[in-house]
């Protein structure tokens, strides 16, 4: 029976691949004009619904707009939606979770009641309702996802805090008379932050997908602003004849999501090996 003796490689392959892919997309987001000379909202009545070719890499839509340009220019907005919609809940939710978990008692009880109420709604239902209230559009997307996204962080962080709170080194810190703030930042935060960050990576993906889905439904990014979900939505009417309108923005969505997911997986592996 042969057993392979594997040498441990120094950097986690998932993390590396994820960082590479994400960097590519960040580059595309920052310098779209380097990749295409077309204007994403310029119409061209002479080449409507043209199939992919050397002239138009991803073809054109029913207004003659170059899909490659629209897709590339959407990158900035989509990545922004992904990260922007996640970052506020990350901080707010984590803070709530630490406070609720650490102080317990009435504060925790109230927090759990509020969580229960928010938990009663499926994600999309509440998100759509809020987007509708906030008058649709990009700002509405952010507001909606900020209001709906914090609860997962709070739940996650709170349960981690509950575990860590009873650890002996926290009790030791208390006996030594350290202030609450110091205990939280020095002893508790480092331990709970890692799972929040790992969840955060997958949350970026979820926010991108939800933002694209809501834009697809017409409730998010409004035309003619290019955004992957919105482009796909425009392509639905031409399902049978111009499949390229829907295909390529979707592939960009998958790949950019993959990049962040790999980062999340890589971080998760590393943190697990550090012996939580």
């Amino acid at each position, binding site marked *: 029976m042969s057993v392979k003796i594997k040498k441990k490689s120094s950097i986690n392959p998932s993390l590396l691949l994820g960082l590479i892919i994400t960097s590519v997309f960040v580059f595309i987001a920052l310098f779209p004009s380097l990749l295409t000379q077309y204007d994403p909202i310029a119409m061209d009545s002479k080449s409507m619904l043209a199939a992919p070719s050397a002239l138009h890499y991803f073809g054109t839509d029913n207004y003659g707009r170059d899909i490659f340009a629209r897709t590339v220019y959407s990158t900035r907005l989509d990545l922004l939606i992904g990260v922007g919609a996640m970052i506020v809940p990350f901080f707010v939710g984590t803070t709530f979770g630490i406070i609720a978990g650490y102080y317990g008692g009435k504060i925790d009880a109230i927090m759990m009641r509020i969580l229960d109420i928010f*938990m009663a*709604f499926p994600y999309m239902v509440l998100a*759509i309702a809020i987007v509708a209230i906030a008058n649709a559009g990009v700002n509405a997307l952010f507001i909606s996802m900020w209001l709906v996204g914090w609860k997962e962080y709070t739940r996650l962080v709170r349960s981690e805090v509950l575990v860590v709170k009873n650890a002996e080194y926290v009790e030791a810190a208390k006996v030594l008379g350290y202030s609450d703030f110091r205990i939280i930042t020095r002893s508790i935060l480092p331990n709970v932050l890692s799972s929040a960050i790992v969840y955060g990576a997958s949350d970026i993906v979820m926010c991108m997908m939800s933002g694209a889905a809501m834009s697809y439904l017409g409730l998010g990014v409004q035309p003619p602003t290019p955004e992957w979900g919105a482009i796909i939505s425009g392509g639905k009417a031409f*399902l049978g004849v111009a499949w390229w309108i829907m295909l390529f923005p979707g592939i960009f969505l998958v790949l950019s999501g*993959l990049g962040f997911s790999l980062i999340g997986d890589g971080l998760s592996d590393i943190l697990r090996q550090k012996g939580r």
Partner: protein
Amino acid sequence: MDMFNYTLKRILQMIPVFIIVAVLVFVLIRLIPGDPAKVMLGERATETSLAAMRAKLGLDKSYVTQFLIYAKQLIHFDLGDSIKYNMPVSKLLGQKLMVTLSLTLVSTLFTIILSFAPGYIAGIFKDKLPDTIIRVIALVALSVPTFWIGLMLLTIFAVHWKFFPVSGWGTGILEHIRGLILPGITQAICVSAIMVRNLRNNVVDIRHSDYVDFARSKGISPLRVSTAHIIRNALIPTTTLLALRIASMLGGSIVVESVFTLPGLGALLVNAIYARDYPVVQGVVLLFVVLVMVINLATDIIYSLIDPRVKLS
């Protein structure tokens, strides 16, 4: 505590939450900008006809009065009438509920088919080729947007190869099933990815646990060790996770029903928002909330049934 008393206790706990949710829904809906009367009568309607429409819809009364009417109706399980369709909301919901529930059922079945076997295999062959392949596929599946993959499947299997209907779910059970297959698979893809990862991790943890070693030391067949010990124990957390994901699948139905033009609750919600059909939006949201609560309760009960260490309290 036995199941009946537990259920009763949970229902009692749910009532205050439901009340707050009902108030919240009322407020939220009223915050949606736009005038239902204008949506119905069009931009060019005269002020008098608009006023008449508003009176007819009960929108001319004060918010407090509107709320009292709403509350009174709720207690009698009356959800009002749809502005757009001119029929009781509850009747509308009843028609659409069947579609959404069927979709959720089909999605769950596909999820089980797509995730249980691969999850187990990946766990058993940890770090070997089958595991790597399965994990890569799962990772990609997680990053695939549901609405897009639905559209792709639609294009290939319904438009190009006409295996399935392009929209709707037809009439009759067979047509219904045929119309639910693509949407079911679409929804199952993302959830299966989550299930595969969860099951794989459980199997990896359990595979080397003491009780598996003890079972092997008794000389029982590997098949029995796998089924009676590894799979049985690994499925416990996975099943509970699946039950929770079913609740989020309800929300996902909004997108899937739109893509596949299924006459379900999700599509109803989106259309009602566009039409500023307050009573319908209210009714659908409240129904979703009730469904989620019921699913959560069922999950806890099922969990206590499959894991004898868990006691309902």
